[in-house]
């Protein structure tokens, strides 16, 4: 690919990203926030097993545990970070 073609492609890529940012990036962020709130529920369900106190029949929560464990560190950060309602504005 020549230098000019690269530049042209970069320009069109930038336009594409700009339109995406204007039209759809918000939707993506809200989808991610919805997913995060579902993850919070899973963490709540498996919290007993994490602490060593099974609340649900262990079979089910232990099956969920491997999916939840990788999210623990980001979940802790989200929970412990100071928030106010301006967080919801963007």
């Amino acid at each position, binding site marked *: 690919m020549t230098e000019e073609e690269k530049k042209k492609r970069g320009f069109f*890529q*930038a336009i594409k*990203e*700009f*339109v*995406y*940012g*204007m*039209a*759809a*990036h*918000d*939707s993506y*962020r*809200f*989808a*991610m*926030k*919805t*997913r*995060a709130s579902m993850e919070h529920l899973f963490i709540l369900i498996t919290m007993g097993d994490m602490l060593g106190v099974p609340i649900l029949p262990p079979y089910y929560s232990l099956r969920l545990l491997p999916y939840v464990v990788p999210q623990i560190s*980001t979940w802790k*950060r*989200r929970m412990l970070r*100071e*928030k*106010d*309602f*301006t*967080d*919801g*504005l*963007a």
Partner: protein
Amino acid sequence: MNSVVVLIIGFFVFFIGYRYYAKYIDAKIIKSDPKRTTPAKMYMDGVEFMPTSKNILFGYQFKSIAGAAPVIGPILAIQWGWLPALLWLLLGAFFIGWVHDYSSAVVAMRNEGASFGGLSYKLISPRARIILLCFVYFFLLLIAGAFGAVVVNAAIDQKSSPVAWLFFTIGGVLAGQMIYRWKKDIILATVVTVAISLFGIWLGSVAPSNNILGEGIANSRLVWAIAALIFCYFAAVLPIWRFALPINYVTSYIVFLGLLLGIIGVFVLHPNFTLPAYTSFDIKIGPLWPIMFVTIGCGAVSGWHSIVSSSGTARQLEYETDARPVGGGVMFVEMMLGVFALVIAGTIYASSSEYTAAIAKGPIDIFASGVGKFLGAVGVPDAFGRAYGSVMLIVLAVTILQLVIRFMRVATSEMLGDISPIFKNVHIGTIIASLLTLALILTGWWQYLWILFGGANQLMASMALMLMTAWLMSQGKPYGWTFYPMIFMFFTTTTALIVTSYRLFKQVCSGAVKGEALVGNILMILVGIFLVIAAIILAVEGIKAFSRYRALRTQPAAAVA
């Protein structure tokens, strides 16, 4: 002066401001470093903290900050003459606007993506946080009132717009259903729903609301205010993917297309300004200083941007160096949107008397006529172009309105939820926000409401600049570039709020305000007074914090001496 010359001057200011001033601040004072880890990378959770391309963030920031204000403000402010309005747009954005947006993003980015509440707690004082959050709530109420009034006025003045409004709502809901439920191709969903919205605009132009509903309903402020708030109610309580987001998605294409064709139209027609460059210092809506400086808000400087920059954008910046194009660059683009609105207002009427007659009816008709004229230059029929212009304005206003109602609901829950659990109910929170907004829309005087909104918006900018100055002082960096804009904005906006509240108070005492108008106007006076008092308390807290930082800076020198 020719409109193309004005646009070229605007681009020149954009170029100099962005290329030299912003670059100097970014490189020499902030010392942004692409190798330094941003909160988006350090705390990446794929939800709020997420490294994102600067081009995407550019579009995201533009969509989040561009409401109806950069359009309405210049159209109203041209009553003082187009020259003062143009100068404030250009100089305001150059010295204050971009500084405010950029520094809000930088401070949040350098403080682990903290939001305004956390920043004011850390940089100013614990009391400052509480007052700032109360301030933000009433600021949101004024935004809701002002933008709600824009929607209602547009529905009444432009009879083609309600049908188009209905169709873009249908198109948006369908888009959500097609994309998220039926899992249809996004391009197909976009084409179908944008086509439905365009069809609605055309249908509105041939079947206006008064022909369908009769003059009584078509001209009723109550009907359209309730329609706007029902729209916002759905946006606030329904899952965001079902209503608010897909509608915003579909309508963003309408706005983008309209702006693009409109600017091409200006270059094709290149009309001269027909209105005077300067009229008088003191006009009917108030003196040039301070009232004009709050009438034009977004476009020159706006406090709303600081909330978007700090809570949203700062957590997604991939590199520190992206803060300049995203924070600063987008502000200059919005300045150009304001200049475009000024060109529309200044060139479409043959004389001042025509403009005076038009502005008496409100700015919506002026914008719709202007868009109709400039779209006409690229082959769009006049009736369709006018309908398109009014829909653009409704879209710009209603996008922010539904967002604000949603967050007033969240704020009500957070602030009053501990007093009684009933306030945590989503419906109660939304109804409280809607009723307060309804009172302002139906009973508040439109021009005063707009000025109060502008005053609160700019005062918010001044508060944000105070946080930036405190942070710069705490870091031992030069702070004049945020301090002097803060001082200017603080005195201008508090004076504007005091003047407007006093004028309203005088009208109430003299008996000029009667009946139901008393509710909205007294509410506006109370909100205006509250905002001034809150701002003064915050300023006192800010001065104490500045003294603390200055004392810290002088301590080592004193010890050496």
